[in-house]
């Protein structure tokens, strides 16, 4: 349980277009030995230029699908992965043909939407496999299959109003390695990569990422956000040198304001980290929030180096419904999926918890007769 630490990534002044605010993250020293694997891009390759005697670790952002399997059927990387040499196939891929429902969507928008979708579901399914102890209330299906298959809803970036234009006119900073994306000044996503060249290549893919339902609504409904325009109080300015210090102050003011106010929802909370893979000095991990209802909750994945600095980071802001579901599941998991204990923990009775599970979309996890009994119990209570 640790917080997220963005040391090494400096904030630069934001750029605003409509309701979208993009805050660039700049690295003073890019990470050179962790780079995107070039062949993922097919024709757009040629990013990595490493000397003959220099090894590097490459990573595969989960947004990309390539034909890695030997029989050249499409496969999606299951979350972000790392590999040491350029030839090896990624360890965990999801053969798309196995998931029939998703495979149909694949025909429509295979390259972009689906792999992210998988990753998102992966986050929740990975952590909540289902009941670990076969209490009698749980259905056979819940015990055998857990929560899978689950569907989470999200919007592809292209559907987020104004995001396309904002990304097009955004002026990328030299050495920029990441961006924080705000919609109506709510943090939607943080995206950071090891090297500026990677960022330049991946900048447009922000449009093909997933965004929560809240973000989509904000973008559609909210008026344009204000620019934080520089303001210099002119009373003390006597010379150009004064003016220069005032200008430097202005630049610091924004960074300070942003880092202490705007990102607190992401940075000040603790996360449950799960290490997925370790290679050389890099560690790939996924993190989950503590699921606080009615607050900002971000899930994400990160690659950190041996000093614990972020080399790669991608977050997703959960919608209110997703937070509620996550909250419920995390409490259940904490009590070993025991309904009565969890209900006591939440200060409600068992029937109420059962119905809450049902309204959150987890009705299928409970045995039908148990659920019916809960409903009956609730009805009689209402009549009393």
């Amino acid at each position, binding site marked *: 349980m640790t917080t997220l630490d963005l040391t090494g990534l400096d904030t630069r*002044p934001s750029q605003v277009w409509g309701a979208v605010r993009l805050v660039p993250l700049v690295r003073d020293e890019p990470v050179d030995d962790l780079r995107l694997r070039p062949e993922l891009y097919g024709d757009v390759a040629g990013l990595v230029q490493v000397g003959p005697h220099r090894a590097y670790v490459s990573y595969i952002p989960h947004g990309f699908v390539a034909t890695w399997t030997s029989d050249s059927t499409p496969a999606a990387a299951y979350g972000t992965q790392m590999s040491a040499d350029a030839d090896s196939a990624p360890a965990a891929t999801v053969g798309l043909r196995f998931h029939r429902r998703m495979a149909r969507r694949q025909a429509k928008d295979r390259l972009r939407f689906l792999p992210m979708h998988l990753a998102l579901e992966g986050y929740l399914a990975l952590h909540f496999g289902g009941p670990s102890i076969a209490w009698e209330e749980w259905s056979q299906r819940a015990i055998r299959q857990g929560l899978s298959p689950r569907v989470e809803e999200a919007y592809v970036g292209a559907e987020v109003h104004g995001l396309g234009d904002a990304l097009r006119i955004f002026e990328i900073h030299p050495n920029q390695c990441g961006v924080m994306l705000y919609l109506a000044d709510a943090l939607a996503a943080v995206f950071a990569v090891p090297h500026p060249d990677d960022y330049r290549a991946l900048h447009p893919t922000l449009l093909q990422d997933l965004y929560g339902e809240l973000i989509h609504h904000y973008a559609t409904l909210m008026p344009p956000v204000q620019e934080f325009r*520089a303001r210099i109080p002119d009373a003390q300015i*006597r010379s150009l040198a004064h*003016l220069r210090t005032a200008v430097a102050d202005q630049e610091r003011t924004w960074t300070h304001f942003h880092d202490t106010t705007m990102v607190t929802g992401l940075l000040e909370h603790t996360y449950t980290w799960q290490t997925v893979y370790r290679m050389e000095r890099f560690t790939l991990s996924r993190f989950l929030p503590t699921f606080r209802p009615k607050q900002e909750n971000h899930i994400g994945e990160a690659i950190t180096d041996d000093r614990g600095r972020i080399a790669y980071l991608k977050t997703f802001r959960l919608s209110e419904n997703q937070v509620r579901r996550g909250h419920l599941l995390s409490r259940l998991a904490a009590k070993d999926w025991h309904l009565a204990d969890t209900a006591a923990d939440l200060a409600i009775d068992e029937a109420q918890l059962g119905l809450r599970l049902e309204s959150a979309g987890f009705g299928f996890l409970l045995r039908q007769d148990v659920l019916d009994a809960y409903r009956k119990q609730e009805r009689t209570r209402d009549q009393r």
Partner: protein
Amino acid sequence: MDSYGDLIAADDVLLFVNAAITSTGQREFHSDAGEQRLSLDFLHAYMLGNYRDLYAGVLALDINDHNAVLIIRRLLETTHEATADQRRSEGRLIACRLAMLPPQRVYGLFGALRRARVNNRRTRAIMRDWLSARPDLAFDAVKYRSGLKRALRHAHLTPAAEELGPFVFAPLTRKRYATPLLETWRRAHHEKAALYELPFTAAEGFAAKHGIPRDVFLQRIAPRMTRLETLRLQESAHQRGATGVQADLTRMPLTRLAAYVLSLPVEDRLRRRHELTHALDSAAARVAGSHRGKWGKVTAVLDDSFSAFGSAHKRRRPLAVALACHYLLAALADEYTGLWASGRTDALLTYPYGPTPLGRRILDALDTTPSRLVIVSDGWDNAPPGLAAEVLRIWRTRLDPERRTSVVHVNPVYDAADFDVRRLSATVPTAGIRDAEDLPPLVELAQFSEGRTGLAELIAYMDTRAARMLSGHNHEQAR
């Protein structure tokens, strides 16, 4: 003392002039073509409805051809609303401006008038006069045949040359033409060698018809290309191995040349550094003319941020203007410093990249204590936003209230949402700019937009510009 209404009128006219200089109804970095056209249409309608005289007078200023055509068209469409006096003065301005426009634009205008069913007596007279003043109508008949045909038909004209009518309306019915160019055109239908004597655009079609390989064609047609055709095709011709297409860069107009330089890959620019620098310098010197070295100590802040890329339609145009201004100001000043927004120092290798930290750069510029500070930027200042405005405001109000340094901002991009070019600060005059060549008169014009001069001065200025244009025209006709 100007009345309130006069001040508004002066403001409106300046707003319109800025739009008419910068906007071409094409896509820009921040707005698409539709927004640009809609915004521009509104301004034209507004000007025509409220200040018809001034609207016509704008024709004498350095506005772009797109807007000149729009103004002429609107004036001709609304002939019945004008008084006799207005018609006379408008007629002179229109004739003058048409003579300055490239012929394809004028034929396009005639086509538009035809589609809009504008066929009043004044329109026909203007078309007749313009056509009769063309130096070689046979050439037009070959190069702009459909345009000429439409114009003749619309204005009910018979060309003076006896052969021209049949050529335009039923070209292949004659066995032969006495006019050499027309005869060449006829022969080019079945004789490959003949097409190399035609204008490039006409020959291009015949080359395709005869299946002539592109490199052979380019090699042999090279002498017939116009200056700009040569410049445009030079690179692709070289790639195809046609070495004959060689533009004489020293004769090119400054901004075109800058755009050409920016279109080259950086390695080519490095390799040809001497040649390109020499061409840019001599073009700038030509533009500076008698003003050369008269502007005192000049510092320029030039925007090479990513937005200077412009759009796919106006590729690198804002950056080309900035680059051209860089060389022009170097020629105009006796002591010159050019500061690029990105901090790069080699002007020739510039490319659009990065954010726009204008505030910082303006500070650096003021540090050089210039007598004149010129800012070339699209008005978007984002690192951090508004810093340039603050620096300029404090400079103007607290550090230099006596105006020892004159500051002017020229902006190559029309902002469709604001109906004007974007301003950096209210304390600094802003003018739209299309070609760097117009910089000296624009700096003049920018003084008006500071609000220190009123409508009377503005009208006087426009009258002198109109008189200058008309006398130049008469002078040319007399030659």
